[in-house]
């Protein structure tokens, strides 16, 4: 062979070796260009996607293509796959943080205000907000603020979503490794989880932290215990009779006592980890209303499917959750127990309040809401195919994907129950969806669907399938995740207006807004009151907005671009409606005392103030 042929062969080998990582690197450069060129102030009704140029989508596409090359490379190179998953996470979750000048979502600012209260007073504010009855997360936030020498938690808000999503990666990889799917399906499942998680519960909040605890707990359980092989399978009685017999064993005493799970871990290590899980259960119980119960159900699923050897853990988790509700959260339920138990068993009204009530608003908002439902339905459709195609040693993933839905029987969670349930199910449904493309071919439980024959071009076809599915979900997720950003993301002017308002009110006075889609309640929690004329589920007419604000006698009124967008998209007000409200207020003696390109602050005439 000639020297240049050798050199050419080396170049080809090298380019094949580095193709996946190289494509991802180019993709990241294009993504950075997209961020650099995005102008937040030009955001349209579709939210974040309206300011992202073609470079964003080409960059995302290159990263996904790079991932597909690396995923099907033999041997599997884990370090490169981690790099590619991190690149995917950055593109999907850091874009909003990088493009938007301050943290989005009013709730993240409210939580920062709650943390501020803890910093100043060292205790929760009773009977003010239900969230103060589960103060663990806020308390930890206060410790973090003091530990880092900050004066408040504002510095944590903007980049929190991407930071916590990256923190989820470690337990997700452990879950993927020990869930029973093959290694490639595990990596694909993690990529699918990030590509379909539009739910936006990763903002600065106790539930984001508790979701990390939830994932860690499940990851530890799956890592410690393996399913014991059934005594006999597919014997003389026939496959289906045998399967029915084994399914009946789910409720046997041996299964419920954890004897059907086995471990290779030493007893000391297992005890330490069980102690750690107990602490996690305690932290969960005092930090969030719903996650402890999701963990209890998921641990129950692990026990029933031979992946948990100590049933005591479920009982301890239940005791701590109910114990905290009874003792620590009594301020929440005293006088209105129906908030907790009122929706028990009312599944149809729960589904109604979770789905139907959300499908309203302008055409662009409706599109976003419907696509959100479609993306979730799409993932579960793939998960269903995965269930049919995969061989397995236990049905743990199927059980973990389904059990969170039992929460809907007990609680509608203020119309957000379905969102949370999907979130708890997502990591496991993603792994099942990955099994639709890369199913396991061995296991004591046989697949329902017949195995497809591998053709000559199977690797190319699989690569194509991975690109289409992951990229499809990632693009749609980008659109729907930032779909509310036109009114949930804020400019520096809006934050400055809110700060101005707080600087000019005294304790007991009111700050008036049309809707609380602003960074409000960021300080003086419990002493300065926020009044929103459209704070309920029904919206007043445009004429009523001004009169309701005047009637509330606020010390200052803040009007802003985010409220304007909310009015157009959600309340159905005409374009420029805020100017009408402002004129109405000015006619009643209010005067503009400060203004920014995206916000205006008005003060009442001296006789009112």
């Amino acid at each position, binding site marked *: 062979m000639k020297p240049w042929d050798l050199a050419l062969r080396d170049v080809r080998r090298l380019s094949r070796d580095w193709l996946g990582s190289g494509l991802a690197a180019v993709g990241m450069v294009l993504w950075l260009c997209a961020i650099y060129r995005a102008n937040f102030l030009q955001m349209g009704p579709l939210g974040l996607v309206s300011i992202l140029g073609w470079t964003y989508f080409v960059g995302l596409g290159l990263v996904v293509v790079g991932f597909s090359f690396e995923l099907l490379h033999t041997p599997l190179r884990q370090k490169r796959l981690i790099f590619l998953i991190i690149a995917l996470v950055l593109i999907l979750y850091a874009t909003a943080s990088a493009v938007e000048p301050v943290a989005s979502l009013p709730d993240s600012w409210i939580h920062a205000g709650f943390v501020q209260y803890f910093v100043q007073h060292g205790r929760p504010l009773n009977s003010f907000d239900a969230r103060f009855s589960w103060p663990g997360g806020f308390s930890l936030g206060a410790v973090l603020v003091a530990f880092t020498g900050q004066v408040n938690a504002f510095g944590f808000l903007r980049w929190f979503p991407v930071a916590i999503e990256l923190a989820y990666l470690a337990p997700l990889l452990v879950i993927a490794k020990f869930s029973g799917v093959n290694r490639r399906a595990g990596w694909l499942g993690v990529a699918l989880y990030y590509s379909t998680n539009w739910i936006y519960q990763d903002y600065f909040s106790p539930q984001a932290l508790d979701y990390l605890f939830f994932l860690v707990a499940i990851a530890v359980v799956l890592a410690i215990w393996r399913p014991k092989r059934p005594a006999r399978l597919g014997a003389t009685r026939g496959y289906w009779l045998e399967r029915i017999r084994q399914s009946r064993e789910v409720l046997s005493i041996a299964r419920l006592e954890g004897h059907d799970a086995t471990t290779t871990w030493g*007893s000391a290590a297992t005890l330490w980890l069980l102690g750690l899980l107990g602490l996690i259960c305690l932290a969960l119980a005092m930090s969030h209303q719903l996650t402890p119960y999701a963990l209890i159900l998921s641990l129950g699923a692990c026990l029933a499917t031979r992946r948990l050897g100590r049933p005591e853990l479920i009982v301890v988790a239940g005791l701590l959750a*109910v*114990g905290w509700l009874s003792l620590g959260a*009594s301020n929440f339920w*005293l006088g209105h*127990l129906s908030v907790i138990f009122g929706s028990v068993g009312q599944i149809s009204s729960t589904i109604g309040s979770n789905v139907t009530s959300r499908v309203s608003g302008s055409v662009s908002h409706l599109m976003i809401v419907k696509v959100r439902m479609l993306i979730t339905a799409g993932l579960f459709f793939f998960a269903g195919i995965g269930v049919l195609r995969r061989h397995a040693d236990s049905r743990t993933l199927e059980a973990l994907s389904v059990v969170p839905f039992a929460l809907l029987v007990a609680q509608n969670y203020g119309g957000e129950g379905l969102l949370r349930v999907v979130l708890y199910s997502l990591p496991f449904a993603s792994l099942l969806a990955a099994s639709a493309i890369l199913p396991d071919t061995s296991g004591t439980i046989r697949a329902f669907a017949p195995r497809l024959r591998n053709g000559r071009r199977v690797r190319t076809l699989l690569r194509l399938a991975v690109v289409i599915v992951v990229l499809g979900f990632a693009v749609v997720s980008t659109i729907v995740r930032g779909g509310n950003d036109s009114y949930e993301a804020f400019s520096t002017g809006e934050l400055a207006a809110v700060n101005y308002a707080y600087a000019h009110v005294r304790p007991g006075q009111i700050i008036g807004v049309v809707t609380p889609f602003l960074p409000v309640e960021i300080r003086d929690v419990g002493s300065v009151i926020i009044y929103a004329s459209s704070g309920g589920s029904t919206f007043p007419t445009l004429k009523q907005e001004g009169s309701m604000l005047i009637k509330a006698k606020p010390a200052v009124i803040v009007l802003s671009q985010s409220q304007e967008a909310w009015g157009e998209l959600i309340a159905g007000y005409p374009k420029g409606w805020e100017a009408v409200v402002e004129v109405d207020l000015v006619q009643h003696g209010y005067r503009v005392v400060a203004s920014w390109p995206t916000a205006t602050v008005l003060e009442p005439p001296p006789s009112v103030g």
Partner: protein
Amino acid sequence: MSGILLAGVGALASYQIVLVTLVACIVLLCVRTWLGVMGIVLFRRVTVLLNISVIVLLTSFLLVVILRFKTLA
């Protein structure tokens, strides 16, 4: 049973009762877990006694919690 408990059913809803039942139940569960993980085999009679104690305490805990909800809410 103390005089306070006999004073009225509502007294069973006090936070002390709930807390003591909760802690007792968790302690017994911890003992059961420790025995199980370490592979320590007890006399059958002791095992049954331990399991019955856990069930009784668990039931008591649920009852006092329900009572607390009914009395205070």
